């Protein structure tokens, strides 16, 4: 393995870790509030309440 100094690793952790964290949050928020997903989520909400107790064939 290449020699990586402690400072480099910590720097990577601090900068990229933060960047990654922000990017991920934004990504999740976009997905969640994307208008076209509204219908899917509305449908998903009701899956649980489905009364029919057998698989679709």
């Amino acid at each position, binding site marked *: 393995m290449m020699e990586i100094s402690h400072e480099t690793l910590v720097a*990577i952790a601090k900068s990229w870790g933060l960047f990654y964290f922000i990017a991920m949050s934004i990504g999740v928020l976009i*997905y969640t509030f994307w208008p076209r997903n509204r219908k899917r989520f509305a449908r998903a909400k009701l899956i649980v309440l489905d009364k029919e107790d057998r698989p679709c064939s």
Partner: protein
Amino acid sequence: MPEIHRKLERTAIGFALAIIAVSSIGGLVEIAPLFTIDETVEKVEDMRVYTPLELAGRNIYMREGCYACHSQMIRTLRDEVERYGPYSLAVESQYDHPMLWGSKRTGPDLARVGGKYSDEWHVAHLADPRAVVPESKMPAYAWLQRNALRTHDLSAHLVALRRVGVPYSDEMVENAARDAFGQAFPDGAMAEGVAERYGDDTNIRAFDGDPGRLTEMDALVAYLQILGQLTDAPHQKEAGEQLVQAEEAE
């Protein structure tokens, strides 16, 4: 982005990979640097490895779940340093596979218990804790005195530890079982080799008070008596310096 997520979901495998990717970052960031830095573990010249007898004792300590009630990690807090002694350094558990820092103190911390009490005290206390400390909640371990110690596979134990990085020499491996006997029989022929291999400061005594028999009690007491004694490093920091650092950390 939503399209990507939709595809991820469609193929459940992709979704699984996303979970792994998202979740593993934290662990990598926290743990990976610990393996590359030198500062994590101080360099200490006098740090020695466990003798076979102490190692067997350590395994008994683990087997009986002692770590569930006793920690071996003095934190950098003033009251802990005053109660138990100099705070624990990373180097002290350098050869501990696994570490036994513990997470609960139903009983006191044991990181510096080595040499604090006599062998007789330990034997009496382990056999019947309430005979020594009436308020104690500790279980009695009377059977340790009855059980003979298993020594025949100690060499294999040392080899396994060598594979994970503990510097046992060929000589130590070869003589593991002999050394276990030797350390508990100060007058026997096998005692000499122990000091030769592990240093003159090694405790060589009939730990359980009965030189005629090598028991699990011998091993456990030998281990307890070496706790905090494998290196001098924590004591070399001046007591004052220890306290100052502890205060700062607070």
